[in-house]
């Protein structure tokens, strides 16, 4: 390894540590950066900063979880909008807050169903663990978002590569390669990453993001995953109703092609207990269990409805968000596909929380700050825009 690379990597790690650190630790991250500037050997500097990062990470993750919980609880405002944990509540927008509350309620209903259905205790624990992990990730991602904004589309492209890697090297069951195996866990990467990719694409489009969507479409065709390919088509179709620019056209064409490929390929996976077909089988246990599953699934669409009350950016993003999750739920109704959040499985829970990160920060009707430049040019000025909005409401509901 070249010495310059080690020094650069050490600096990057310092930047990462600084970005994800809560306010009270941020000064220490700066201290670490200044300290490695005084370490003459590059390798030693890298070892020093990576060791420090490992030591501080548990504390940072715990604080991020605390700040998320404080934000959910209404967080005490001090010093012009910051909470006692140094976390700016306005960054945790109303839509995201609505989403997290809906998610927690949906998980609770799902746990009630699983307990009534006699699911193993480990299943219930895993869903709860996924919620905690997702909340920690949400806090960290919100802190990292200013850095991510410097490279728009890069995150989406990276996630698309993971999807493609899953198709090529992932674990296959009955001809479908949709999972990465991590110890005892089967992680469905498309449920993790695809919803956030689509919602992020609704707000920021460039060549990298468009390429990411095309690669994701290819990955879904290869897997094959009819449900997620359908969700991709649904999200992009709603987006196209708002603005059919070149990027959306290319992405939608790729998605439609991928969906067609998945339709032609056999999908012979049988239903997994507590995961698939539970929207119907839950009623065999008790009508309340069935109602819990349906209500839980419906709760996932609440942010889409709430976003409709906001500004143009919020309405468009919420419509795309709603159409994606509605498509995933409908897939669980019509086929042997996972019922998100209410069924057993952590991928959808974490995927939903990641997707919330892509929702706009502000939903105020007067707000202009979070509206992307591309959409500012066209929103509300296109002929037939109100008709498109009406169609999106249908897609949302």
């Amino acid at each position: 390894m070249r010495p310059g690379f080690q020094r650069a990597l050490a600096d990057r790690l310092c930047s990462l540590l600084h970005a994800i650190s809560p306010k009270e630790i941020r000064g220490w991250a700066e201290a670490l950066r200044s300290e490695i500037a005084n370490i003459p050997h590059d390798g030693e500097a890298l070892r020093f900063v990576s060791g420090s990062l490992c030591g501080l990470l548990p504390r940072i993750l715990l604080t991020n979880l605390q700040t998320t919980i404080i934000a959910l609880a209404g967080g005490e405002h001090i010093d012009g909008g910051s909470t006692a944990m140094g976390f700016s509540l306005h960054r945790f927008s109303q839509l995201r807050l609505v989403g997290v509350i809906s998610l927690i309620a949906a998980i609770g209903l799902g746990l009630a169903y699983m307990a009534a259905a006699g699911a193993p205790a480990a299943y219930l624990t895993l869903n709860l663990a996924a919620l905690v992990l997702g909340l920690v990730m949400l806090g960290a991602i919100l802190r990292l978002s200013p850095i991510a904004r410097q490279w728009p589309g890069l995150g989406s492209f990276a996630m698309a590569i993971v999807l493609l890697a899953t198709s090529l090297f992932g674990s296959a069951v009955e001809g479908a390669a949709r999972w990465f195996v991590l110890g005892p866990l089967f992680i469905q990467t498309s449920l993790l990453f695809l919803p956030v990719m689509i919602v992020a694409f609704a707000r920021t489009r460039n060549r990298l993001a468009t390429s990411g969507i095309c690669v994701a479409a290819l990955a879904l065709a290869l897997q094959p995953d009819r449900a997620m390919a359908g969700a991709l088509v649904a999200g992009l179709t709603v987006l196209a109703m708002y603005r059919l620019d070149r990027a959306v056209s290319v992405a939608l064409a790729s998605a439609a092609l991928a969906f067609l490929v998945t339709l032609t390929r056999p999908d012979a996976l049988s239903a997994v207990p507590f995961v698939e077909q539970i929207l119907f089988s839950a009623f065999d246990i008790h009508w309340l269990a069935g109602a819990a599953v349906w209500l839980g699934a419906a709760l996932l669409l609440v942010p889409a409805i709430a976003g409709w009350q906001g500004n143009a950016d919020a309405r468009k993003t919420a419509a795309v968000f709603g159409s994606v999750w509605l498509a995933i739920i409908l897939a669980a109704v019509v086929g042997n596909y996972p019922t998100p959040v209410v069924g057993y499985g952590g991928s959808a829970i974490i995927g939903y929380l990641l997707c919330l990160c892509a929702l706009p920060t502000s939903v105020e009707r007067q707000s202009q700050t979070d509206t992307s430049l591309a959409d500012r040019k066209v929103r509300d000025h296109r002929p037939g825009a109100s008709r498109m909005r009406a169609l999106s409401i249908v897609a949302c509901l």
Partner: protein
Amino acid sequence: MTRSRRLSEHARTVLCALLDAREAWSHGYELSRLTGVKPGTLYPLLIRLEASGYLVAEWQQLAKVGRPPRHAYRLTASGVLLARENPPAAASGGAEFGQDALA
């Protein structure tokens, strides 16, 4: 019930190094090298010591041109007391130490 103030061996070692430095300021890398405590243990420990009021941290501008300011540490009066009450195992005859009270 009074909580026992039993420090980890790492905490005692770092406190001892800071006590030895007396009025002089210490730095993270130097402390790590001097005590053999890994940076992953050192920084969380320094954070806890500072939060508990046993340590004062300060940014210091270095005389060398082009070097960024450096974070420096020194024990407070209560930190000096804590360090004296809790010498490292080698110095206190190999007593057993339990959990880090500052954790």
